[in-house]
């Protein structure tokens, strides 16, 4: 029922184009996240769907109905934002039944729904508590429940977990996802945290400067990003510049700085083209187990993050390559200054045309 459709949505703030001709369809029952750097327009977009911001151009449909002129309370949505907005003088119960009460719904209708909500967020025992007696995470769960007791079928989440501790956030995101599944809702979730988006979404949308630059299921965006910006934004990647040295039906051979040649599966470029290649740190193998696609250099440093070692290797031409590998603390395998051979398989190397405005500009996160 609540399919969301945006047609050519544009919003300007003075000279700034916050949303630039955005077209987007969110299917019924889908969980979609929007990510992008600060200022990319993701918050403006979700606020337009909620009815808090009015687009300058374009149409917004919810459940097939044009809603541009409908106020927020008539759009059938639950809206949760970063700053927990519970009424401090009301108990959990009064907070979550607030919407139905102001709508004048009879208590016998509201009660079972509210009880079910409390059950789902595991807060039945705390229904008499005041917000100040609850942790930040629990308050935000209450806010989600409150957004849903008006029988909203579309949940709009605007950085709902942004103000919480990382661990609380990681736990809560799964609870919210489960709630959306169980209640068969449609959800749109705006976040700056790409890991959060990746781990809970059916589909992730990447925005940059007011436009949607890419959209897809998380694993595809991570392993097959279509652009350099996405490759960088959804996770760490190594970027090296080079030129196409040879082309065949199977792929192309890229010569990178320092003279190494890497076979790739890309057939989109011609011999002589200047390109950027990208590969994920965890897709690099250490040691010369492959007879080809090798890169050699010296270990600059090894940093542990839990059980994962992050090894930085300086290639002969000065380029840095980051390798992530499961290492054991007891037997550190590398020392700073060690010579090391790396290899990357052709299917793990992404090839992009060299960006017009330069690589740094394309990689800038701010």
């Amino acid at each position, binding site marked *: 029922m609540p399919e969301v459709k945006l047609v050519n949505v544009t919003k300007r703030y003075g000279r700034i184009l916050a949303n630039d001709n955005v077209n987007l369809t969110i299917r019924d029952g889908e969980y979609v996240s929007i990510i992008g750097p600060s200022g990319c327009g993701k918050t403006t977009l979700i606020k337009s769907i909620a009815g808090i911001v009015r687009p300058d151009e374009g149409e917004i449909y919810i459940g097939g109905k044009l809603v541009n002129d409908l106020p927020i309370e008539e759009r059938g949505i639950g809206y949760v934002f970063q700053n927990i907005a519970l009424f401090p003088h009301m108990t959990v119960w009064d907070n979550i039944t607030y919407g139905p009460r102001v709508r004048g719904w009879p208590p016998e209708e509201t009660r079972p729904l509210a009880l079910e909500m409390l059950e789902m967020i595991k807060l039945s025992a705390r229904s008499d508590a005041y917000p100040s007696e609850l*942790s930040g995470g629990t308050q935000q769960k209450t806010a989600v429940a409150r957004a849903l007791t008006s029988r909203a079928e579309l949940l709009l989440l605007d950085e709902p977990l942004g103000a919480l501790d990382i661990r609380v956030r990681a736990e809560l995101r799964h609870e919210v996802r489960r709630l959306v599944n169980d209640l068969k809702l449609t959800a749109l979730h705006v976040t700056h945290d790409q890991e959060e988006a990746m*781990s809970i979404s059916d589909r992730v949308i990447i925005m940059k400067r007011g436009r949607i630059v890419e959209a897809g299921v998380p694993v595809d965006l991570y392993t097959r990003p279509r652009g350099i910006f996405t490759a960088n934004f959804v996770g760490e990647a190594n970027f090296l510049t080079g030129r196409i040295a040879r082309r065949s039906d199977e792929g192309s051979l890229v010569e990178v700085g320092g003279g190494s040649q890497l076979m790739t599966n890309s057939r989109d470029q011609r011999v002589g083209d200047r390109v950027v290649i990208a590969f994920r740190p965890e897709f690099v193998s250490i040691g010369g187990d492959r007879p080809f696609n090798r890169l050699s250099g010296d270990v600059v440093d090894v940093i*542990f993050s*839990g*059980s994962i070692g992050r090894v930085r290797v300086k290639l002969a031409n000065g380029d840095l390559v980051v390798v992530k590998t499961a290492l054991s603390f007891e037997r550190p395998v590398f020392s700073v200054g060690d010579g090391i051979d790396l290899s990357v398989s052709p299917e793990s190397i992404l090839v992009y045309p060299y960006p017009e405005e330069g690589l740094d500009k394309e990689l800038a996160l*701010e």
Partner: protein
Amino acid sequence: MSLIRLVNVTKRFGEITALDHVNLSIEDGEYVCVLGPTGAGKTTLLRIIAGLLEPDEGEVHIEGRLVNDIPPEERNAVYMFQQYALFPHMNVWQNVSFGPVIRDWDEESVKKLSSEILEMVRLAERRDAFPNELSGGMQQRVALARGIASGARILLLDEPLGALDARLRVDLRSQLRRLVKDQKLTAIHVTHDQEEALMIADRVVVLRNGRIEQMGTPHEVYSRPQSVFVASFVGGANFIEGSVARVDDSGSVIEIRDGLQVHVSDSGRRVGEKVVVAVRLEDASIGPVEVAGSNNFPGRIESAMFIGGSMEYGIRLENGVTISSKALISDGFKAHKVGERVVVSFLPERCYVFPYPRMGLLKETEAM
């Protein structure tokens, strides 16, 4: 001699004891991360060192001198707030050179230091910009630059990366450490992000309810957690309840639900003792068959989650216990599917055994 030394520092706010007899020494040039959940007392600790709060009991020594009665500006330490507080009417250059200028440095020295530091935080090109023209990440870097340019030897950083987007935060971690090390400063960095602490710090101090729960190098804290809380807060783990069935020279056998047995190398337990076995998600591997020398439990995949760079699975064992397993993906990886039958394996030496917590397991492991 330690650069900073706290002796029995206690601070109360009404009925709440924010810091409870904290003893901590920090060496010159060290990068220390103070890690803990909200309300652990991290910010209080930092503010006491800065001189912005007075301890109720205990002593604070900086550079060998008792500073309890010394005002903040004479402690050779600069405190950076969570919300970067730049002067809005000054441009980047003026903000960064503010400290040296008011301390009456000669023009040449001010110029040299400020340009160097701006270069380092990669904002030399934006020196004429005003704070409101910069992104959050840039403002944060200006604030850092200003702190460093102040000439103080000690940087007190309160969630310095907290206000930034996740992706940018990760990028700035190594820059921050390099900056501190290049300038030969000493840094105390407060964070609730365990990954950040493990990556940046020379030493991690885990704070909980106003007390130091554990401290050591990132490696020590991660690989030898001394409590269920630390295992859970730093790195995370599966926690399995059981009791000690057998103890011998090679380790112990822990009996868990439905009589299943977990072999552990740890042998410092008594038979019959109620315990918790902790197994890191990355130490629990899954595969089609049993692994020799490991604990092996057949089960069924209940959930599979791609978290960018790694896969996290939930596997339901035959006794109803769910084990989470996490592994870096590698090239050409194929994800296991929900419903697939697999064997979960983990080595006896990768199991941590703790006495069953007095207040219950949940109290030690819950995030909220």
